[in-house]
C-alpha cells in the first residue's frame, strides 16, 4: 500500500515536471516571447507566433520527449534482458549501429518509403539489430554469459560503427554539421513529420513491453526458473530484443545518437520504486522523456547557438556510469 502511494506521488511530481518543462520550452527561445504572445496565439491565431510556438518549439519539445521515452524504455528492457544494470542502447552498441544504418542509407541516396516505413529507419533497425545480436553472441563464451565481455564488446562494436559512420560522412560531404548531428544528436530541426514517424513505434513497443512486463520479471530470476514458471522464454526474449532495438533505432533515425539516457533513467526509477517491470517501463519512459526535454532546453539556451544534446546527456550520464561501475562488487 505504501509503495502505491509512493508511486502516485512520483507520478504527480513527474507530471508537474512535464508540464513545467513543456511551458518553459514554449516560452524560451532566441526570439523573445512571453505569456502574452502565447495568449495572443490562442486568441488571434497569429501565424508567425503559431509557427514559432507550435511548429518549432512545441514539436521540438514533444520530439525530445518521445525520443527520451523511447531510449529509456529501450534501456529498461535491455537491462532486464541482460540482467545487468549497465546495459543500455548506447552501451550495447545499438545506437551507434542504428546511426550507421541511417547514414549508410543517406550515403546510398535511398529515400523511399515501404508500407509507411522509411527505408532509413529500416536500415537503422537492421544495423542496430545486427550489432546487438553480434554483441550478444560474442559475450556468451562457452555458454557462460559475462557482463564484462558484454560491456566491452558493446563499446568496441559501437566504436567501430561510429568510425564507419564518420568515414561515410567524410567521403560523402565535407559537412561537419552532418557528422555532429549523427554522432552527438540534435533536435534543432525537429518537425511534426518526425513526431508522426516516431509516435506509432513508441506506443506499439510500449504496449508490447507492458504486456510482457510480467514475463520480464520472471526472466530476471533466470531462464530456467522462468521456463518452469510457464514463461515462453525464447520467444519472449526475441520480442524484447526486437522492440528495444526498434525503439533505439527509430529515435536515432530522427535525432542522431543521444547517449546515456537509456542507461541512467531506468536506474533512477529502480532506486525510486523498485525493480518491478510492470511499473518500471511506464515510469522510465515518462522520466526519460522529461529528462530529454530539460536536456534539450539546456542544449539550446546554454550558449548563443545550439549545443549537440549528446554533450549534455553525456556530461550528466557518464559520471553516473562511472559511479555505477565503482559500486559493483
Amino acid at each position, binding site marked *: 500500500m505504501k509503495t502505491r502511494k509512493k508511486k502516485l506521488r512520483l507520478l504527480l511530481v513527474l507530471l508537474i515536471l512535464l508540464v513545467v518543462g513543456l511551458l518553459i520550452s514554449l516560452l524560451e527561445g532566441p*526570439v523573445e516571447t512571453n505569456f502574452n504572445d502565447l495568449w495572443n496565439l490562442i486568441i488571434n491565431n497569429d501565424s508567425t507566433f503559431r509557427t*514559432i510556438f507550435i511548429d518549432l518549439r512545441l514539436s521540438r519539445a514533444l520530439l525530445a520527449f518521445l525520443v527520451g521515452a523511447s531510449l529509456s524504455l529501450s534501456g529498461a528492457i535491455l537491462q532486464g534482458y541482460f540482467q545487468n544494470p549497465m546495459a543500455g542502447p548506447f552501451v550495447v552498441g545499438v545506437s551507434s549501429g542504428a546511426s550507421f544504418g541511417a547514414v549508410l542509407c543517406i550515403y546510398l541516396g535511398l529515400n523511399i518509403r515501404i508500407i509507411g516505413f522509411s527505408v532509413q529507419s529500416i536500415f537503422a533497425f537492421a544495423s542496430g539489430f545486427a550489432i546487438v545480436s553480434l554483441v550478444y553472441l560474442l559475450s556468451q563464451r562457452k555458454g557462460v554469459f559475462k557482463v564484462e565481455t558484454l560491456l566491452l564488446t558493446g563499446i568496441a562494436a559501437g566504436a567501430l560503427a561510429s568510425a564507419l559512420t564518420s568515414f561515410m560522412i567524410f567521403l560523402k560531404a565535407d559537412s561537419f*554539421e552532418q557528422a555532429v548531428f549523427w554522432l552527438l544528436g540534435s533536435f*534543432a530541426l525537429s518537425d511534426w513529420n518526425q513526431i508522426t514517424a516516431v509516435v506509432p513505434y513508441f506506443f506499439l513497443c510500449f504496449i508490447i513491453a507492458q504486456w510482457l512486463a510480467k514475463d520480464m520479471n520472471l526472466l530476471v530470476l533466470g531462464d530456467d526458473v522462468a521456463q518452469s514458471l510457464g514463461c515462453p522464454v525464447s520467444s519472449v526474449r526475441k520480442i524484447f530484443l526486437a522492440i528495444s532495438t526498434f525503439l533505439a533505432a527509430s529515435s536515432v533515425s530522427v535525432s542522431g545518437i543521444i547517449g546515456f539516457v537509456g542507461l541512467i533513467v531506468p536506474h533512477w526509477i529502480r532506486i525510486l520504486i523498485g525493480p518491478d517491470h510492470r511499473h518500471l517501463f511506464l515510469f522510465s519512459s515518462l522520466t526519460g522523456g522529461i529528462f530529454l526535454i530539460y536536456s534539450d532546453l539546456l542544449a539550446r539556451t546554454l550558449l548563443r547557438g545550439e549545443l549537440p544534446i549528446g554533450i549534455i546527456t553525456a556530461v550528466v550520464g557518464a559520471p553516473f556510469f562511472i559511479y555505477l561501475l565503482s559500486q559493483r562488487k
Partner: protein
Amino acid sequence: MKSKKIHAVFLLIFLNAVLFGNQQTTIKDDLDFPFVMTSPPQRIISLAPNITEILFDLDLGEKVVGVTRYCDFPEKALKKEKIGGMIDPNLEKVIALKPDLIIGFRGNPLRIIERLRGLQLPLFVLEMGTNLETVFIIIEKIGTITQKEEKAEILVESLKKRYSKTQTALRNVQHEPRVFLSIHGTGLWTCGKGSFLNDLVGKAKGVNIAGNIPRKWLHYNREQLIHDNPEVIIILSKSETEFSKVKEWIKNEAHLKGIKAVETDRIYFLDENLATRPGPRLIDALEELARILHPQFFKEER
C-alpha cells in the same frame, strides 16, 4: 473554409494575371524547386555573405532584414539582424523577421533547407558553382528573383569588362608559376579542383599545385608540398596581422625552408573575404592575384 480561402487566392492570382499582364511567374531554383514570383520582395533574408554583398550591390540594402553573423560587407550589413550562421541559421529568428524572400545556397545544410521549405517559407537556393563565371549567373539570378534585372545586368557587364581587362593584360604570360594557396591559418589547408579559388588561380595565369585533387577543401600533405615546390605561396587571411603570423610560421618551419617560394620570399597576402566569397568582389581578388603572380604586366597602372 480553408479550401474557400485557397480558391479565393487562386482567383486573385488569376485576376491579377489577366488584368496586369503576366505578373506571376514560377521559376526553379538551383535545387529544382519551384519559386513563385509575385511583387518585388520587401523583406529579404540572406543566408550567406556573398549573397548579402550582391543584394547591397543591387541597391537592395534597405530591403535586407536578416543576414548571417559572417556578413560583414558592406559595413551597413553589420547593422542588420543576425539570423545565425550559414550552417546553423536559427529558424525562429528567420520566421520572426517575416521574410518574403530567403536566399540560401548549397552550402547551407540540406536538412536546414528542407526544414525551411517545410515551414512554407519563400526560399530560393543557389548553386555556388566552381568557377568565376558562376558569379555572373548568381548575380543575374538574384536580379531576377528580386526583380532588379536591369541593375544586375549593369553590374555583370562591369564585372565582365574588368575580367576581360585582366585577361588582356595577361595575354603574353610565358610562364605560369606554381602556386600554393594557404587557407585557414597554420595548417597547410588548401583548396582543390572543385573550388572557385582554384579557378581564380588559373585565370590569373598560375597553377594551383593542389588543382588536380578532386576535393574542395583539403589538408595538403607536407611531403607533397616540398615535392611540388611552389614558386609562390598565397596566404588567405582576414587581416595583415593574421597574414604575418602564418608567414612567420611557414618561414620558420624547417622542412619548408627549401621551397622556392620561401627561398625567394614570394609569400603574399590575399584578403580572405574577397577571395572566398563568390560575389562581386571576387573580381577584386582576381585582379589582386594577377598583380601578385605577374607584376610586370601591371606596371603602368601603379
